[in-house]
């Protein structure tokens, strides 16, 4: 299936580029997750299912969740992100 592989490689390049040039951070994170999932498919095509599993679970899943979580904090008002001494117990 050379056409599938060619298409996969092309989409990988496109999603990687979109993740890099996206102005909107949310869009960049989504593109990163899509890139990770496509990468997992690419690893399967390269007959490396072990790496595909790790890529899907860690690369796309957990890193994506962590990035989205960070984004949520970055979007909060600037002043509310400072450390408050009263908050520490």
């Amino acid at each position, binding site marked *: 299936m050379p056409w599938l592989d060619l298409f996969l490689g092309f989409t990988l390049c496109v999603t990687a580029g979109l993740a890099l040039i996206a102005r909107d951070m949310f869009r960049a994170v989504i593109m990163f997750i899509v890139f990770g999932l496509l990468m997992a498919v690419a690893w399967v095509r390269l007959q490396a299912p072990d790496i595909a599993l790790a890529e899907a*679970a860690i690369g796309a899943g957990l890193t994506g969740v962590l990035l989205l979580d960070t984004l949520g904090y970055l979007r909060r008002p600037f002043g509310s992100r400072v450390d*408050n001494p009263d908050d*520490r117990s």
Partner: protein
Amino acid sequence: MILRAILAGLLSLGVIVALGWAVLERPAPVENLPERVASAMPESGVEHPITAVLLNFRSYDTLLEIAVLLLAVVVALALREAQPDRPEQMGLDNPLLRSVMAWLLPLILVVAGFLLWAGSYQPGGAFQAGSVLAAAGVLLRLAGAHLGWLDNAALLRAGLALGLLTFIGIGMVVMLPGVPFLTYPEAHAGTLILAIELTLTLSIGLTLLSLFRLNPPYADDPDDARTQGGPKP
């Protein structure tokens, strides 16, 4: 400006050409590693070559990897305090997600256990199972479940270190008959690898989950609705 663009273009082109040349003209491997792994498989204690390499032939590398992971989470814990789970602030505290989680959670745990067990004869293993476990924890947290035991610092640290300590411990116990570090006896290799993988799965899952729980502390900001009404830690 145009000159710089042309320069950058030439430079990128050069890198692409160099990369292409390096890939096409790579030297032939000196040793046939796949064949060596295949010939050593019977004494590894597992049936899947990747697991055999990761946890038997090159287990020292994996040990160091786990140490790096532990170091990373220790530094992260030192820099940020873990936020206690406050369901009212996760914003997803609804009955639907909760009831779906009640169905999903056993399934996720079974999948994690299967990945761990499958690692000995097909793709799978501690890293994958650990990240599935962590995903279950993240989902629970988002659904507003209270994971109070994670706030117990001593318990959390013990859990984080468990994998590495078991790995080192087993690696040292097998030295008793006078063989090098991490050289498992052939008869018990499978059992020892499974024991190491089981504790590694727990520690990796806990590591990833506690990385997710580390957040910048909330502050009292009257403009920020998310801090209103939340209990003080």
